[in-house]
């Protein structure tokens, strides 16, 4: 048996070590061979003991202790290698999760920064175009960021129905320069026209008044009354 095992070892050792997959298969094969070899030795010992008790044969002196030690060493090395590989894979997965969390943290910071700058733009535009809306102080921006679990993707913008003058993605230096240019043009017009802005440049959505209110307005009802009076006079004069 020792000779056959040695032959197996020589065969496995001489196997071409091409790549990592072959290495893993070779190590697994050695592990299996060592485990089977130990199991075989254990059964052989038990069989020898039974035969010695029956008196059929003489007790066999174990002449393969060194071989058993080598097999046990091989088994232990294979087991430790497998445990190390498994732990290495666990740590790699853990590191990958930490990197994903860090990426979410930075992405959340980018989103909050864009929202903050866009809010500042809105405040300035509101103060410029609406005199009744003063420019308040800047709100505090906490520098501590907590990553949103499974937050929205960067492609998602501001929610619909909430028009912003500058998109958050334009909140960089280019957006700032564009903002200053628009303000300079507006303020130049305002300075030429007078202290109070004549008409807001920004698009203002005014609610439409009902038809009855619009008809009863003095600008509409007075010309209608005048036309009716002229018609009555003409009819009376013709008649």
């Amino acid at each position, binding site marked *: 048996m020792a000779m056959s095992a040695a032959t197996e070892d020589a065969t496995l050792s001489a196997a071409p070590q091409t790549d990592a997959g072959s290495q893993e298969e070779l190590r697994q094969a050695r592990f299996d061979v060592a485990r089977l070899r130990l199991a075989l030795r254990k059964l052989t010992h038990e069989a020898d003991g039974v035969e010695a008790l029956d008196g059929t044969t003489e007790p066999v002196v174990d002449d393969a202790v060194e071989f058993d030690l080598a097999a046990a060493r091989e088994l232990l090395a294979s087991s430790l290698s497998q445990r190390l590989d498994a732990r290495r894979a666990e740590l790699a997965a853990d590191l990958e999760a930490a990197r994903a*969390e860090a990426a979410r943290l930075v992405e959340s910071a980018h989103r909050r920064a864009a929202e903050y700058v866009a809010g*500042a733009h809105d405040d300035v535009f509101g103060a410029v175009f609406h005199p009744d809306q003063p420019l308040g102080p800047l709100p505090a921006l906490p520098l501590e960021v907590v990553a949103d679990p499974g937050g929205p993707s960067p492609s998602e913008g501001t929610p619909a129905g909430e028009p912003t003058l500058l998109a958050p993605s334009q909140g960089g230096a280019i957006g700032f320069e564009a903002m200053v240019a628009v303000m300079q043009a507006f303020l130049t017009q305002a300075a030429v026209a007078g202290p109070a802005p004549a008409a807001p440049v920004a698009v203002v959505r005014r609610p439409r008044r009902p038809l009855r209110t619009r008809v009863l307005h003095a600008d509409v009802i007075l010309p209608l009354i005048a036309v009716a009076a002229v018609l009555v006079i003409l009819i009376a004069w013709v008649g």
Partner: protein
Amino acid sequence: VLTAYNELAVMEREHGLAIESCRSDARDEAARILEAAREQAAALHARATELADSSGLDLEPDRSVE
């Protein structure tokens, strides 16, 4: 066994350092981004107030009242 134990200890220590470095870098980057946004918004406010003052407009009536 000792070799494997030592290798495992080195692996765990390097893993802990890598995790901490990754988190620290992310925190620093997030703080830098937010600080830049705060500075940009402050510059925008200052520039708007400056332009308004030079044009005779008052964007902060509360401040003028005070």
